[in-house]
Every structure is written in structure tokens, then in C-alpha cells.
């Protein structure tokens, strides 16, 4: 019997929602790690019982947790994230040099092949790797060693590395994104990185076409087409069909192209989803109506999906790691809001149901498809 497990990280703990393949009845467990900020929780694609979690606190800093039984029990794992060598500086908000300082883990990306191998995207932006199930961590210094590092600067949420995409066809290739530096690609397992921001245009930086400095909010990939990436930038929805060498805008008829999340249908590589947000200073849906937009054409032509979603007086946000898609057919789509709801659709987005509500603000949503 197939099933799904939704891992929701919130501002005050983690919640685990499970359902069978019908996805009609949900069992909600939690909070786990009550009172802690759970920036991201993600399971291994090769061992669904292996789950990694980033647990942090303004008081006690970063800790990490791992479950080997599908979230029933957890053990603390390594939380020592030390930059390689002399950390150097990046730009601060006022443009002055600022030393790299570790703050938290934003994103965890378990390997596609090895449950003990996991990557962590952190603030201040860097990528770390663990090969022992998270017990120890080592920076992959080639990324910050990219010559542009001193010019990276934080977005409003900090200088965070929030997206890590592993290429399922090229083991040495991965993509990452940083707010507000941009997107980068490695083709040699992380030794060297290339800024892949050509075609991005950002009016809020001195050179709108700069090599780095773009506030990329999220990247998404369909596993069957890893050279095609979709991007929700601060403003603009973008796509590339050559692994980031060149981006083109596909915002099309979106009512606003600001937003955070973007994801791809499990079985239709040209069907993508975004949640438009009014603006960078008004972090809520346009007109107080929560609408997911779907494009079946890889962008440009978008349709609003509203059934089951609040269409008045809704002023929540949907943060960048808060959308996920299961692998069932039809696939399920999930997203969480800062109002504490997790919405799900089991029909490609045509209709939605709040599978839980009144949680603390949701920071991340991941779904595991269980066989």
C-alpha cells in the first residue's frame, strides 16, 4: 500500500502528517522539537526511514537531528559548521565588508544514492557536506572560493543558501541558489562552481545584469530533464533549458511575479506551480486571495487555482521551502503558509484541502512518497 509522509517545519517545532495513497485522511503528529525553529526536514530518497532535520533557536543556535525510523524517534547529530580556512568577508547590507558568520542551516539535501551523504545549505551562504549521516560536516569551499564571494550580500532574510538540486543523471553536477547572490552550478562534484545568472535582470541592484547579486528565491527541476530549471526570483519567474547557461523570463500573465516557491509536477515536466505574492514589502497574496498558479506550458501561460483556498481576507505568505510534490499518480501537491495551514491537492492543483491548520508559521514542507 502506498502512502505519503509530509514533513512540516515550523517556527516552533516540526509536524509529521501521514496518509495512505488516497490522501484523504491524515494523521498529524507533533510538535517535535517544540519551541525550536525547524527550517527544513527532508528524507533520504533511498531510505525513507532516514530523515534529517535542521533545528535552531535564537538562544541556543543550530542543532541537527536525524531519524532512522521515519520520524518516530530522533537523535542529535553533528552541529559543528566551521568555514574552511580564513572565512573572509561578504558585503553587508550597507555595502561594507562583513565577516562570514555561521547562523543556521536553511536547507538539507540528502544524496540520491547514499543515505549517509547529505548536503547542507547554510547562512552565511556556504554548502557543507556530511558523509557519515550528519555526524560531522565539512564545507565544500569551492563555492565561497568563487571569485565573486566578497560581492555577495544578504537578502532580507539573510545571506542564505536555500536551494540545492542534485542532478539525477550527472553525479558530479549540482545546482545551488543564494539570496542574494544568485544561482551556481558545479560539474565536478563541488570543487569548482560557475555563476549561472545570465539572463536574469534585477532592477534593485546597480547593474541589473550583473554576474552575481540576484535575489533568487527558489529553483526547481524535474528529474527527467535536469538541464531544465525553473526559478522564482525575487521578482520574475524564469526558466533555463541549458543547465543555467541562459535564463529567459516566463512570468507571462501572472498577476504579480514576486513570490518564493516554485515546483514541478511529478509526471509532467512542463507543468509548474508558483504562488504569487503581492510584492517584496507586502508579503501576502494579491487581493487577499490565496491562489496557486499553474502553467502547463513551462511558463508564460498561467491559470489560477483557487478551489478550496481562501479567496478573501487571506494575508499569509508561502516561504521558499514550503512547497513539495509527491510521486503518486496523480501526484499530490503540498504547500504551507505562515498562517499555519498545510494545503494539499491530490488532483494536480485543481482543488485544495487544508490537511492541517493553526500550526505555527510554516517554514518548510517536504513530502516523502512511501511504497
Amino acid at each position: 500500500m502506498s502512502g505519503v509522509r509530509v514533513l512540516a517545519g515550523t517556527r516552533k517545532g516540526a509536524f509529521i502528517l501521514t496518509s495512505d495513497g488516497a490522501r484523504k485522511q491524515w494523521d498529524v503528529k507533533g510538535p517535535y522539537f517544540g519551541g525550536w525553529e525547524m527550517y527544513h526536514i527532508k528524507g533520504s530518497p533511498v531510505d525513507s526511514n532516514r530523515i534529517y532535520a535542521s533545528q535552531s533557536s535564537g538562544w541556543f543556535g543550530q542543532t541537527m537531528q536525524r531519524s532512522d525510523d521515519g520520524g518516530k524517534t530522533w537523535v542529535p547529530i553533528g552541529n559543528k559548521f566551521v568555514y574552511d580556512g580564513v572565512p573572509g568577508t561578504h558585503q553587508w547590507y550597507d555595502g561594507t565588508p562583513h565577516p562570514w558568520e555561521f547562523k543556521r542551516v536553511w536547507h538539507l539535501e540528502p544524496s540520491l544514492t547514499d543515505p549517509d551523504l547529505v548536503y547542507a545549505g547554510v547562512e552565511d551562504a556556504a554548502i557543507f557536506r556530511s558523509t557519515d549521516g550528519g555526524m560531522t560536516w565539512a564545507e565544500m569551499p569551492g563555492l565561497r572560493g568563487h571569485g565573486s564571494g566578497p560581492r555577495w550580500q544578504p537578502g532580507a532574510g539573510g545571506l542564505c543558501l536555500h536551494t540545492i538540486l542534485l542532478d539525477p543523471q550527472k553525479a558530479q553536477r549540482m545546482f545551488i541558489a543564494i539570496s542574494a547572490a544568485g544561482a551556481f552550478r558545479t560539474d565536478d562534484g563541488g570543487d569548482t562552481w560557475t555563476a549561472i545568472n545570465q539572463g536574469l535582470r534585477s532592477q534593485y541592484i546597480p547593474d541589473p545584469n550583473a554576474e552575481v547579486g540576484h535575489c533568487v528565491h527558489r529553483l526547481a527541476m524535474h528529474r527527467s530533464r535536469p538541464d531544465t530549471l525553473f526559478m522564482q526570483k525575487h521578482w520574475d519567474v524564469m526558466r533555463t533549458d541549458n543547465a543555467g547557461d541562459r535564463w529567459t523570463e516566463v512570468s507571462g500573465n501572472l498577476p504579480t511575479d514576486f513570490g518564493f516557491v516554485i515546483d514541478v509536477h511529478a509526471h509532467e515536466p512542463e507543468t509548474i506551480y508558483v504562488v504569487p505574492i503581492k510584492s517584496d514589502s507586502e508579503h501576502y497574496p494579491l487581493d487577499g486571495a490565496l491562489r496557486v498558479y499553474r502553467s502547463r506550458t513551462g511558463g508564460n501561460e498561467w491559470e489560477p487555482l483557487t478551489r478550496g483556498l481562501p479567496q478573501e481576507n487571506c494575508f499569509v505568505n508561502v516561504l521558499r521551502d514550503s512547497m513539495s510534490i509527491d510521486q503518486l499518480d496523480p501526484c499530490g501537491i503540498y504547500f504551507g503558509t505562515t498562517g499555519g495551514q498545510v494545503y494539499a491537492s491530490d488532483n494536480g492543483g485543481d482543488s485544495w484541502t487544508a490537511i492541517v491548520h493553526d500550526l505555527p508559521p510554516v517554514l518548510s514542507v517536504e513530502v516523502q512518497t512511501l511504497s
Partner: protein
Amino acid sequence: MIRVVLPPHLKVLAHVQDEVLLHVEDPPTIGSILDAVESQYPMLAGTIRDHVTHKRRPFVRFFACEEDLSHVSSDTVVPAAVIAGKEPFLIVGALAGG
């Protein structure tokens, strides 16, 4: 033995219910007490002070015998009542958050 009281969140993280008892070499200092805490409960490393610099985290405080020891040197020997086990060494999450 030195008695140490952890803040509630760190008790949960360390899987302890009450205050913890630690053997600390004489003379026990703030730093050596924290060394012992991290040695006995490795999951607490980095949560009270920085892994590398050992600088106290900003929202953590150290109290003992009605004194705030947060701002003194980590080489400071703790009060006699703490050494004698009559009073605990308190690690406190600063009151913050409204």
C-alpha cells in the same frame, strides 16, 4: 560534584530531567564546568557557547549564588557554595521574546 541546571530546551536536547551532576577538576571555573557539560552531553556543544571561540551565546546567561557570572572571564573560579555542591551553577536562556 558540581550541580548544573540547564535551561528547559537544553534538558530536552540532552534527555535529562533535572539538574546534572558533573565532576570538574579543582578549581572549577566557568570554562571547565562548560567543558564538562559538553563532554558529558556532546549534543550541547555549540548551544551554550561557540564551538570554536567558546564565546558565550548572546542569549545565554550564567548565574550562581544570586550573582550574574555571564560577563566575567571563563577562567573565573565559581563561588565556594557551588564548589561545595550547596548551590547549582545555572545556565539560563535569557528572557526575551516579549
